[in-house]
């Protein structure tokens, strides 16, 4: 009786796409749009300071006639433009790092999981060494030798992150390689590359995408951390991390300098995280079928 009551209670109409998916997705899309269009609508010039307009509160009028919707920083640069320029840097770095690190990790993970043996050992030990090495030190080294730039940030982060992808792909590849279909293909004489492409890769893509989504959020934070420490983008370029760093002495007086990039980062990373979670649920169901 109680069982029937419970099943009746559970039948309800579900919306096509739940709120917890389309809302974060919309936010992420908004950020991407802002990053693409922003620098055209409200360009940021890192070298255009105007000390007359310094430390203006959000909504104040600039001496050049415009309005500083989100205030100005300590040398008079508008915060809105910095936010948009920083969005571009964050998304480019996160995207490129995940792409490069992901590709390298995918290839190496497939090789390690499929061929096993000494290839697996070498790749995994390399990864262990990498993980044991503090990424901040590597960032300092690269920034010191090559100088700060967006390309160097991507290089630093990709070097330290490929192992995350490689491990996940390797796990899938190990499972997939043991399938009877793969054994059969080997017996028939299908070349290894074809096996990898047709049998193993589809298995690995699912978990890989989930990890990639989570890593995008992580890379946004990592880039901001490096820029906060001065090891990321050069002085004249805006990044959320360097903007927060600029504003950290002014938390009591000009809170808007550090707060808005911080909020933007939180929104972006949390949205990406929720999306990754939703993706995880979907791919999980697919895998277990």
């Amino acid at each position, binding site marked *: *009786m*109680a*069982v029937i009551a419970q099943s009746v209670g559970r039948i309800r109409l579900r919306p096509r796409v739940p709120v917890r998916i389309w809302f974060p997705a919309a936010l992420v899309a908004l950020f991407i749009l802002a990053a693409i269009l922003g620098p055209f609508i409200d360009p940021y010039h890192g*070298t*255009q*300071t*105007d*000390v*007359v307009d*310094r*430390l203006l509160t959000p909504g104040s009028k600039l001496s050049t006639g415009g309005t500083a919707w989100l205030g100005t920083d*300590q*040398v008079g640069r508008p915060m809105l433009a910095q936010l948009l320029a920083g969005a571009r840097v964050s998304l480019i770095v996160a995207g490129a790092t995940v792409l490069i690190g992901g590709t390298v990790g995918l290839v190496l993970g497939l090789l390690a999981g499929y061929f096993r043996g000494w290839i697996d050992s070498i790749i995994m030990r390399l990864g262990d060494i990498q993980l044991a090495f503090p990424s901040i030190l590597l960032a300092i080294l690269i920034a*010191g030798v090559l100088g700060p730039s967006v390309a160097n940030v991507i290089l630093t982060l990709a070097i330290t992150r490929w192992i995350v992808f490689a491990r996940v792909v390797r796990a899938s590849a190990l499972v997939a390689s043991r399938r009877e279909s793969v054994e059969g293909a080997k017996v028939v004489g299908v070349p290894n590359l074809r096996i990898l492409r047709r049998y193993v890769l589809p298995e690995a893509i699912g978990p890989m995408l989930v990890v990639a989504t989570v890593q995008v959020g992580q890379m946004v934070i990592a880039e901001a951390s490096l820029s906060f420490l*001065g090891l990321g983008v*050069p*002085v*004249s370029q805006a990044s959320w991390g360097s903007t927060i760093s600029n504003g*950290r*002495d*002014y*938390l*009591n*007086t*000009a809170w808007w300098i550090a707060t808005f990039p911080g909020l933007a980062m939180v929104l972006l990373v949390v949205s990406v995280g929720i999306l990754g979670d939703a993706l995880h649920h979907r791919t999980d169901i697919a895998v277990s079928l």
Partner: protein
Amino acid sequence: MNTETRANGSLEGNGLTRRDFVRFTGIGIGGTALLGLAGCGMTKSTSTSTGGTATSGGSASTTLKAAFERPIISLDPHGAADVDEATLLASRHIFDTLVTRTGSTLAPSIATKWDQPDPNTWVFHLRDGVKFHDGSALTASDVKASLEQLARSNTPQASLWASLASVEAGDPQTVTIKTKTPLGTMLSNLTLLFVTPAAKLTDSSFFNNPVGSGPFKVSSFTASEHLNLDVNPEYWGAAPKLKTLQFPYIPETSARLTSLKTGAVDVTWSIPPDQMSAMTSTSGVKVVSTPSYVYYFNWFNCGRAPFNDVRVRQAMWHAIDVKTIVGKLFGDSAEVMNAPIPSTVFGYAAQQPYDYNPDKAKSLLTAAGHPDGFSTTLMWSTGIAPQIRSLAEAFNTYWGKIGVKVELQELEQAAWLTRLLALDWDMDLQNNSVTTGDADYSLGRLYTTAANRMGYSNPTLDKDLSDARSSTDQTERKKLYADACKIIWNDAVGIFPLQINAAYGVRDSVQGFVPAPNNQPMFTDVTA
């Protein structure tokens, strides 16, 4: 399964039972209470260790904590850090000098009296009964060893003693210093000569825990982290009122200012101009400032193109609206400079300011062969001076308007210092303090051809500076330094935008604190 009632009377499946609910609530309340008690206990113990708030009827504490913006990297007063503000501050409390500066006069310290039998000879008579912290007596041989060590070292202070001929310790209480040419700055140089035990000068680890003869002795020191001092009860001079003096290093400005507000430290400096209003409006804290010897400057590497042409340097200066920048960025905390040294220093002479004139700047550039501008770099060290990055960025905007593209390079301290001393830079932005209050310390030390600190070489200037150093006639020295100021200013060896007030944040309970113009206050007469 689901329809069975559970033993505790719950009809739900595996939901929270009443027993579990009570259990968890009890743990929660108990845990919170424990944490609260622990927290109260901790705050009570920290507040007693910092001397507490001044609620208990005005009993002054004997422990004082002071935090300032630079780390103490070394306690060696004759080493590579011998002009570093932090090392000088520590040295003044741990060691003694022959003479000290009080205001604009020089007073006896270890040396009770001195005379000059001839222009190249100075005889100093030392005080009796001065002991080092380990009990050994301070004698003339310690003074001799310390000065010889300093003069032959390859450190920034050594060039002050270029004309030293010999130091003799005739008897334990007399030191005779002979120079090759008369040294007019003998006494002010001696305010930076800290006397260390002769026996320990060869011990490389001595300065990790040094002994001196000063009002405080070292109880614990970790470079770039903290320095703790205890009072020296055997001090020959007036005993300090404090029993313990601590210098923790707090690198983040906001953390340092917050420590002052909460009472975790009692004194801090410098207060950046932008945070000044927040500090003055905080109860329990006051800001004391004084015109200082500290100034900012932007050197040009005069040995490198395009800055080897004086017209280019002058153009760079005319391109900047110094008055607006300094007024907006620093407000009341700084004044626009009109000489290469601050107006508080002996030897200062006002010069003709460079007016803000971008057109003149462009025509100077064209005359020098750069009609379309050029590209160059500017470097500075992170955190070396309040708001230095904003200053660099503001300059950059004005330079961009005359077609000069500048790449801004913010470097970490060690990397910046290496490049600075190797002359591997185009423009260098930094601050400096004329520590002795005498123009020889800055002009005479930095702008000679021999010093080669920015590739500028001018024989007339060299003669002015060496004459001024060797003269003991203060009027004549003033005239010579006035000429030196004019040469350096008109040749635009650097841009000298501002001299900043020394601003100290002090808790209300601190008595007897005197703001020092060189960012190195003394704590011997202070109570917390």
